[in-house]
């Protein structure tokens, strides 16, 4: 069994999978994210924490191409993805989940996961209409892979064909993770995955994130409010407050930081 310290040491030596360099996002006059830099080492679990409205989700939206940064650079591996389209970024290996679950309500759990595979499929208009052997095989493989993924995240078989709106809350969260995994990402962005979970479920998810990292060689960037989960799973933590980075480092360092305590609990007079 490896200790957190050993994992930390290993992770810090690895080259950065994603580098966020001095990124700023302004909406009109409002500065949502200001001059934030984050390095996400390969095969690490990095957390992004901060009070509500600190700019965490805005940063996620920039990393996935939904927003264009006002200034700064985002580099994935060797490639600058600052101005890339969301679907291109997904194709390059970044997948995400959403703070408020965003499944396709009128599609089954299985179809939702199959959508995740979209960027890995080739079938075009002619192939789909003629249903060529290649398209047929691709469709079969993707369906099979989607089943495996649902199984992997722990959705029961009888829920596979249920519509997303009919699933329990926990299953919806699981399907959303399976859908993100279906895109075969190297970097997985999880936006408050434990929201609405009880302590047991949160603990199980903590273990599951480690499994994802170890079994699927994933790098995980996590937005999380549950400090137990954050301190438990993260090798590095970046703290945002009012759009700026106020602290960064190993869990123990961040926990001891005066500025972090101040941001969360208010200033002591």
């Amino acid at each position, binding site marked *: 069994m490896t200790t957190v310290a050993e994992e930390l040491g290993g992770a810090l030596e690895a080259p950065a999978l994603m580098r966020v360099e001095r990124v700023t996002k302004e909406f009109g006059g409002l500065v949502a994210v200001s001059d934030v830099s984050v390095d996400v080492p390969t095969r690490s679990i990095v957390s992004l924490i901060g009070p509500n409205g600190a700019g965490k989700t805005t940063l996620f939206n920039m990393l*996935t*191409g*939904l927003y264009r940064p006002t200034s700064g650079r985002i580099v994935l591996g060797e490639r600058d993805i600052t101005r890339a*389209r*969301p*679907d291109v970024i*997904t*194709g390059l290996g970044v*997948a*995400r989940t*959403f703070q408020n679950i*965003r*499944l*396709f*309500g*009128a*599609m*089954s759990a299985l*179809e939702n996961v*199959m*959508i*995740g595979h*979209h*960027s*890995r*499929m080739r*079938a*075009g*208009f002619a192939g*789909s*209409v*003629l*249903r060529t052997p290649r*398209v047929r095989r691709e*469709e079969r493989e993707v369906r099979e892979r989607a089943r495996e993924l649902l199984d992997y995240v722990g959705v029961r078989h009888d829920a596979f064909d249920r*519509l997303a*709106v*009919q699933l329990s809350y926990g299953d919806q969260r699981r399907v959303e993770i399976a*859908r*993100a995994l279906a*895109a075969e990402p190297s970097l997985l962005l999880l936006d408050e995955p434990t929201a609405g979970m009880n302590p047991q479920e949160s603990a199980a998810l903590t273990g599951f994130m480690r499994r994802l990292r170890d079994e699927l060689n994933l790098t995980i960037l996590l937005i999380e409010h549950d400090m137990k989960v954050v301190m438990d799973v993260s090798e590095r933590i970046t703290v945002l407050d009012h759009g700026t980075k106020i602290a960064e480092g190993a869990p123990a360092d961040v926990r001891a930081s005066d500025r972090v305590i101040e941001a969360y609990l208010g200033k002591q007079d």
Partner: protein
Amino acid sequence: MSELRAQLQEWREAIAALVPSWLARRWSRWLAGALIVIGIVLPFFFAPASGFLNATIIALAYVVMALGLNVVVGFAGLLDLGYVAFYAFGAYAVGWFGSGFFFNAHIHVLSSALGTAPGIHLNFVLILLCAIGITSVAGTIIGLPTLRLRGDYIAIVTLAFGEIIGVVAVNGTSIHLGGGETLTAGNLGISALDLPYFPGIGNFTLLDLRPWYWLIFVIVLIVLFVNLRLRDSRIGRAWIALREDEIAAVSMGIPLVRTKLMAYAIGAAFGGMSGVFLGAYATTVNASQFAFSFSIFVLAMIIVGGLGSIWGAVLGALLLSYINYYLIPDVLNSLPRTFGLNFDLTQLSFGIFGFLLVLVMVLRPQGLFPERRRRLELTAEIAAEDAQLVEAGTPTAGAA
């Protein structure tokens, strides 16, 4: 065949409540086969130029229209109110490439026109292919400005596009192409269009409508097949995902622009095919045909049938077409006079349609033949609402 069988699952579900499942499963296969056979032999039961056959031919052309619009509105969720534009492009394709309209040209390819006749006279199938090309490009062009828009705003842009095409058609007489030729003949209309000709079958005539019927029946089968295949493919899934949640869809790797434009282009191409047929069948292309009400008529078909449902689109198109082109003008037209009222029922067509739409929306808001997923979603939401009502109602009940 085997494909249609598999896709008739919705029919199966509808009758599953009445019959044992094993029986229903076999029925659906038979149903598809039976419907096709009935479709083929149907004209033999009517006079070659009967009013009913005429109405059926028009109804089938509208089925193609409805299936096309269903791709855009039903699958991809892009409310298109300018669908009449593609009817116009299709009809004008016949006007341009199947008549003596461009009198300086002299191009003949396997057409029914005399070899000495001036103008462009292409075979019907070639005109159909031209129209598919023109309308899919037009569909892409109309799609481009709507890409950054959502919901109602898409409706407004497409509506304007439809109106622009209509106005251009009317004023096309002022657009000179050189040599005295103009773009359209405006409200005068381009008439004497070539009747379809097929080698080995010969010329179509307006005295025997059966060949027209079989032609549009084959077009319906092709369009239906393409629709069913697309719905259950990677592309169909992407459309539905975009309809459900655009942000999530693009984050899952669905290219927004390409996927939406594909829906516009394919929907437009079906509209164009139907336009070619309707133009040739009317043997004239008149700018006044391309009114806004046409777009609404087709939209009403897919809403009555059930948005997003292929079989709903078919049913809605048949139903509204028969009411509009057979029931009201041929069967019930003189009804008011039998009550001593001095008007024709056709004068009330729009009132009747409005009433029917309201009736469907009140009694069956999901449409006559809703898409499976939408039906389930609606039930799930209702169940959730009911649960909330029960919860909310409990204390009151306890207090009482």
